[in-house]
């Protein structure tokens, strides 16, 4: 169905090719997962499939890409639209129309699908992706997860034979992600859809893949999932656990792992993970950095937070979880005084954040927004760091030193836009930390991060907490929470549902349980590192 023949891609400003010597064949009805570290060329590979590279991106394509026999050199993306559907990384950037229904119909309109058929397919798609109750809403007013589903739906409704998805679940909460993936696998099985999918959160998708394509330094190798995972530079926790225990073949799903994990569970029976001990000792002497009492915040006329009580103290890392659109980002915005409170109170370091002027505010709280680029304004990383130093009146070089600590290999002369996701996040975090705010807030920091970048992020946030900062992270990523958080708060529909130690909350519900917890259930293990430490001690 898709054929890459000795394909190389080189962009005009790059000194080395993004992809080179790619030979790849994807057959009809296959679900192929593309993995690789950030910046390895996954997105470029995907955009080659429907000809966006090189027709829209510029650059030079050598070799040949054919889809259903059509060569992308002679066929523009629009000529391939009936065969290939593409969903990009940022769903909102791809919306052409104003409302959900119109967006779902747009692709079909362009293809000239008959009116009756079109209506039926819109209804089917609304049901398939659970969008029926927002069908008339304006796209801008939807939450990130809903937007993601609309973007997928808009492409699916046109019934392409090949679907190309770039990180389709990165903005989704665990349950919504499972729904989308379940819908995809159903389409693959029932309709013979061919799916090419890039994803960083392998724990969500690797079990559904028929084949895994690993992209490393512009080179591509493809293999069966278990074999590919054994040598992949990035791997989900379940694979790490399998490698630790020496299971062969490596289990890809929780079900497979549980069947071989019996001896390991026996060996660890009766032992307590070290982390539980730590979080109990942590909550001793500490002062409150953020406290909300019966907090009500509106966005427009809609009450997004309805009476939230919460507390973040020095030295702890708190994870804020909840469905898409449940009010996580709103809570963080309110904690920085970006949104007015409608009722109750919020205090950041003892002050009402909305009453502080920006200069005082940054002495109390720092926020890394969902899009770290919002904090970056300069042409080079070096200029950005110097500006941050002057902003907070720190000694010159402070930000740069922080950045070296967080991401060692960033050059001063690079444009912030050319950094990888992880590096950009590190830069934004360094800028925020330059002001030494006692409270650090992060909104969905792992979007687009590979496992290596995530591990570095966890290490730096943990060391912040050890230095006495308080950290509040809003995220959907349960694996991150398992490695990072002391405490987990779950909000639903603007109300606080759960607030408790990470181990108890995560292990307590299947939706929020990390893979290791599922494999080791009913024992309270959350991460591979915990298991490894305990095995070593025994």
């Amino acid at each position, binding site marked *: 169905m898709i054929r890459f023949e000795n394909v190389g891609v080189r962009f005009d400003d790059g000194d080395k090719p993004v992809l080179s010597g790619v030979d790849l064949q994807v057959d009809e009805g296959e679900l192929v997962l593309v993995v690789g570290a950030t910046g390895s060329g996954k997105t470029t590979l995907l955009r080659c499939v*429907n000809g*966006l590279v090189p027709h*829209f991106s510029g650059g030079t394509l050598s070799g040949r890409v054919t889809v259903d026999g059509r060569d992308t050199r002679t066929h*523009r*993306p*629009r*000529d*391939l*639209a*009936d065969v*290939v*559907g593409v969903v*990009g990384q940022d769903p909102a*950037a*791809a*919306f*052409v*129309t*104003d409302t959900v*229904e*119109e967006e779902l119909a*747009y*692709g*079909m*309109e*362009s293809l*000239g*699908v*008959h*009116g*009756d058929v079109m*209506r039926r397919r*819109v209804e089917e798609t609304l049901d398939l992706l659970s969008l029926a*109750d927002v069908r*008339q*809403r*304006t796209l*801008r*007013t939807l939450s990130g997860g809903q937007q993601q589903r609309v973007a997928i739906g*808009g*492409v699916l409704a*046109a019934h392409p034979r090949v679907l190309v998805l770039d990180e389709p679940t990165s903005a989704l909460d665990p349950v919504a992600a499972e729904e989308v993936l379940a819908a995809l696998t159903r389409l693959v099985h029932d309709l013979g859809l061919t799916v090419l999918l890039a994803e960083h959160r392998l724990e969500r998708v690797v079990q559904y893949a028929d084949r895994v394509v690993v992209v490393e330094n512009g080179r591509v190798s493809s293999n069966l999932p278990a074999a590919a995972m054994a040598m992949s530079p990035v791997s989900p926790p379940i694979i790490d656990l399998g490698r630790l225990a020496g299971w062969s073949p490596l289990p890809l799903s929780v079900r497979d792992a549980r069947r071989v994990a019996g001896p390991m569970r026996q060996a660890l029976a009766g032992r307590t993970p070290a982390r539980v001990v730590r979080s109990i000792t942590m909550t001793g002497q500490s002062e409150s950095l953020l406290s909300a009492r019966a907090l009500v915040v509106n966005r427009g006329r*809609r009450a997004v937070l309805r009476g939230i009580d919460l507390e973040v103290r020095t030295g702890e890392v708190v994870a804020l979880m909840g469905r898409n659109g449940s009010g996580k980002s709103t809570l963080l915005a309110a904690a*920085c*005084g*970006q949104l007015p409170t409608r009722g109750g109170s919020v205090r950041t370091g003892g002050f009402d954040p909305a009453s502080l*002027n*920006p*200069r005082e*505010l*940054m002495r109390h709280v720092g926020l890394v*927004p969902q899009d770290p*680029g*919002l*904090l*970056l*304004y300069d042409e080079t990383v070096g200029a950005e760091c110097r500006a941050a130093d002057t*902003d*907070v009146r720190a000694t010159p070089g402070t930000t740069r030193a922080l950045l070296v600590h967080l991401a060692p290999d960033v050059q001063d002369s690079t444009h912030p836009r050319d950094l990888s996701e992880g590096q950009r996040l590190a830069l934004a975090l360094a800028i925020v930390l330059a*002001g030494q705010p006692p409270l650090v807030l992060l909104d969905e920091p792992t979007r687009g991060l590979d496992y290596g970048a995530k591990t570095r992020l966890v290490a730096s946030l943990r060391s912040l907490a050890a230095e006495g900062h308080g950290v509040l992270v809003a995220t959907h990523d349960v694996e991150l929470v398992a490695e990072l958080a002391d405490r987990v708060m779950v909000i639903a529909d603007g109300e606080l549902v759960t607030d408790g130690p990470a181990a108890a909350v995560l292990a307590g519900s299947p939706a929020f349980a990390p893979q290791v917890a599922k494999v080791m259930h009913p024992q309270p293990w959350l991460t591979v590192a915990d298991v490894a430490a305990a095995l070593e001690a025994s």
Partner: protein
Amino acid sequence: MATWPRRHGRLSKPATAVTRALHDPRLPRLLHPAAWWAWAIGLAMAASRTTNPLLLALVVAVAGYVVASRRELGAASPFGAFLRLGLFVIAMRVVFVALLGGGVPGRTVLFTLPQVPLPAGTGGVRLGGPVTLEGVLAAAYDGARLAAVLACIGAANALASPRRLLRYVPATLYEVGTALVVALTYAPQLVDDARRVRTARRLRGHAGRGPRELARLAVPVLDSALERSLDLAASMESRGYGRSVHRDARSRRKATALTLFGLGGVVAGVYGLLDGGSAPLLGLPLLLVGSAAAAASLAVGARRERRSRYRPDPWAAPEWVVASSGAIAGALVLVAAQRGVPGIIVQTSPAVWPTLPWLPALGVLLGLVPGWLSPLPPLRALERKGSHPDNLSRDNDSQDIHAQEIRTQEIRAKSIGRAS
């Protein structure tokens, strides 16, 4: 199978129960975008022919009332932005006339600015000097006229998203269509980005206001908005926009030529109608010729067009009411201006207190009719019933309206089914 032609969204006979329901202004639905734009152009035409501030204020009030009562909830509302732009236009105009002199001679000197001597031979232009009441008034009235036209355009934008109107751009002109969609997205995207960046700027210890901040933030904001626009163009392309064009080069050239000629004619005609200074015969005839050419190009394009339409907007009685109320309002003021009815053009030298000419005022008031006689947009209809627009189906109070809404959809489905 019952077949009756249903071209360009227009319902034709026989009038069944289905079509009758669409004629009922009580049935909540979105009107055809062209109806709102026709209404707004009518009002703009009225505004462009008068300098009477009372009449102009009336036009703005009428547009504002209709926007307030018929705008769909949750849709972008650029009306306020257009009003602010209008005020800015008036202010600029007055300031420039005060500084440079406007060519309107006046005797009532309000105050005198220090004058910079200019070399002889610069005509009526001067820098500083006496500022007269007559000059300022003439500038303010002129500015107000433009501001009122802007308000009408803003109203059309708020009532019917330009993107919905763009669905009617023929595929023969797909490059123009892409450019228009991208351009239309760019401005709101820019405003959105600017707001987000300014909020984020607070996190770095700056207020995000003032000229220095503006200079610092302008480049990244413009940059990211441009990048998004390119993303959007890529998205349209990869979803097949403009596919149908590559079929037959000759018919494409014919259709393109006709469309360009037609659009040119329409634009020139509208300009003729709006600009009081141009020859009276330039407006209407050119508009008619242009429309005919555009229609012909649509017909040629439509034969080739493989695009289909999801739930095409019907054109029924409410659309006629809305479009004609604006058209009549414009026509009445046009005729009054042609006949030289006193009060349409307010005398500024010597300055007199403007009075409201009753006939054109009544004409402008006709533009209010859509405020009562057009169907409510669906979400607003729900809101009127006192339920929240977010949970359509959960709310018991809204069940009957919801049921009605479902009926509308069924009706449309049927009418589409029949069309084929």
